């Protein structure tokens, strides 16, 4: 009641003043316009791809890449979808990314439980090890992994990709989650002790539920990172049926059968899944990117 009253009194006195001050400053709109122009430059490539993906080759040849399509032409997208069996690629990417995200989070939890809460001996060295493991260029691992996977008949199989990325992503997850678990409220752990819960039960019924927001961030990261991975899937997934979306699109580059509109169609359907994840996960993502910074 008091709050509304005081605001009601304050607003009329405040508003005209600020409004006048704002009007006096043309710089404001100059800066906004400059930012909008810059944003347009950044987004322009995406817009150009989008308008040309739904343009017929004839119209493209006639009026160029910048005109808006007079009618929507879906054949480029449909042709491309059928030609690369895009549904299959989407499924491969989804299964791989999802499995890696689940297993990677589980592995991170176990590691971080031992390092952050258990304070295992030599934990600083373990942390350094996981940090370095995450920084290593994949080139230094690729040939032995390629060789070993052939030995155990997992070459050209999604399973090998899942195993490798689970470990690589969990290395980052361990690093991040350990710093979160170090700050874990000891009262909760002590309470679980008093209740007679073992370590295993404490982990699943106390630690995991409490840290669910961080785990959500990790899951999102792992999913998107694995979805976008290019190098190792390129080396490992050689047959058409096993390719993920980025590999399928990457190897088609420069294919002589691709004309301008079909190429932009392929670009558009490559962007769409990423865009959808971005919109779905946006909140968790922004939170997560900063979580990494705080250490």
């Amino acid at each position, binding site marked *: 009641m008091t709050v509304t009253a005081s605001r009601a009194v304050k607003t009329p006195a405040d508003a005209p003043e600020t409004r006048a001050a704002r009007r006096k400053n043309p710089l404001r709109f100059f800066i906004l316009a400059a930012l909008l122009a810059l944003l347009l430059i*950044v987004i322009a*490539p995406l817009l150009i791809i989008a308008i040309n993906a739904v343009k017929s080759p004839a119209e493209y040849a006639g009026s160029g*890449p910048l005109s808006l399509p007079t009618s929507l032409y879906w054949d480029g997208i449909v042709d491309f979808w059928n030609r690369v069996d895009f549904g299959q690629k989407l499924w491969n990417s989804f299964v791989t990314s999802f499995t890696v995200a689940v297993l990677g989070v589980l592995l991170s939890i176990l590691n971080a439980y031992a390092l952050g809460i258990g304070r295992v001996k030599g934990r600083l060295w373990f942390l350094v090890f996981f940090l370095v493991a995450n920084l290593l260029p994949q080139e*230094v691992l690729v040939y032995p992994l390629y060789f070993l996977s052939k030995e155990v008949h997992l070459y050209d199989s999604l399973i090998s990709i899942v195993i490798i990325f689970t*470990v690589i992503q969990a290395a980052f997850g361990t690093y991040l989650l350990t710093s979160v678990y170090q700050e874990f409220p000891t009262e909760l752990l002590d309470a679980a002790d008093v209740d007679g819960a073992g370590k295993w039960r404490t982990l699943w019924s106390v630690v995991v539920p409490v840290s669910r927001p961080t785990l959500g961030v990790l899951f999102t990261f792992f999913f998107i990172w694995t979805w976008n991975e290019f190098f190792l899937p390129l080396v490992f997934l050689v047959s058409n049926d096993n390719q993920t979306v*980025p590999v399928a699109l990457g190897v088609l580059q420069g294919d002589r059968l691709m004309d301008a509109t079909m190429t932009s169609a392929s670009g558009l359907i490559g962007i769409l899944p*990423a865009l959808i994840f971005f919109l779905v996960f*946006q909140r968790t993502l922004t939170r997560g990117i900063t979580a990494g*910074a705080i250490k």
Partner: protein
Amino acid sequence: MRRKGYGVFLIPGVLASVLVIVVPLVMTVWTSFTKWNGVGEQRWIGFDNYTRLFEDTLFWSSFSNILLLILAMAVVPTLLGLFLAAVLFDYVGKKFSNRWASFFRSGFYLPQIIPVAVTGILWGWILHPDYGALNMILDKIGLGGLATNWLGEPGSALYSVMGIMIWVQLGYPIVMFMAGLQRVDPELYEAADLDGATWWQRFTRITVYLIRPEFYVVLVTTTIAALKIFGPIFVLTGGGPSNATLVPSYFAYKNFFEKAQVGYGSAISTVLTVLIVVLAFVFLRLQNRAENGRVR
């Protein structure tokens, strides 16, 4: 309080890491001292791969290309992102609304979420010499003379890749810095305003000073990303034309899978790895020092 008996929880993680990371790493380092085509006999040749490497002009040019890519992927986006983040947070957020600020942030971040293969398609298409949008635009506004085969000419290919990488990277520092700025006490800005500080003075003395931790994190992660760059090169130029955009990781890839010179490829990756690990430690120290300085 020290708790005991948590070691078992580390077992799956350590076993998996040994299998996927330690063993391959050791194998690659060992292989770098041998001559091997991937199938036949592996012969120990000592440091021969490394002496060959340091005399190989391609190796040196791949590293000088990386220096330019660090400029495009780490230095320019960090500086530009710092400035834009400050403008968005401190100017747009306050003089307009936070809605506008986060709208711009999402927009600038967009290129970051696009899979690298798609970035390749996108730009390969826009810069295509025959039907690319950029040349057509230049033609239309009467600058047709500037049109060139952007990714296909040795003189322009690397610069084109650099421009594309700035586009890709810009959103990351903006998001990081804007998050960091939220820690800054608004009273500091108000005090500066009262003292009659200009916007630029506030930017250099307060903003830049206070988000040094984020600054180091961004610089180290983007620099390492530049050293590791593979995907964009593979899809945009394939290291060409005539090796103008060759980078170490692609150079290693070619030796592994195209030339079957596995020992030589291993030596290249080993050098790259040493470089990245050393750089990471140097940066971590710098960052620690900066943070301790702040506490004091």
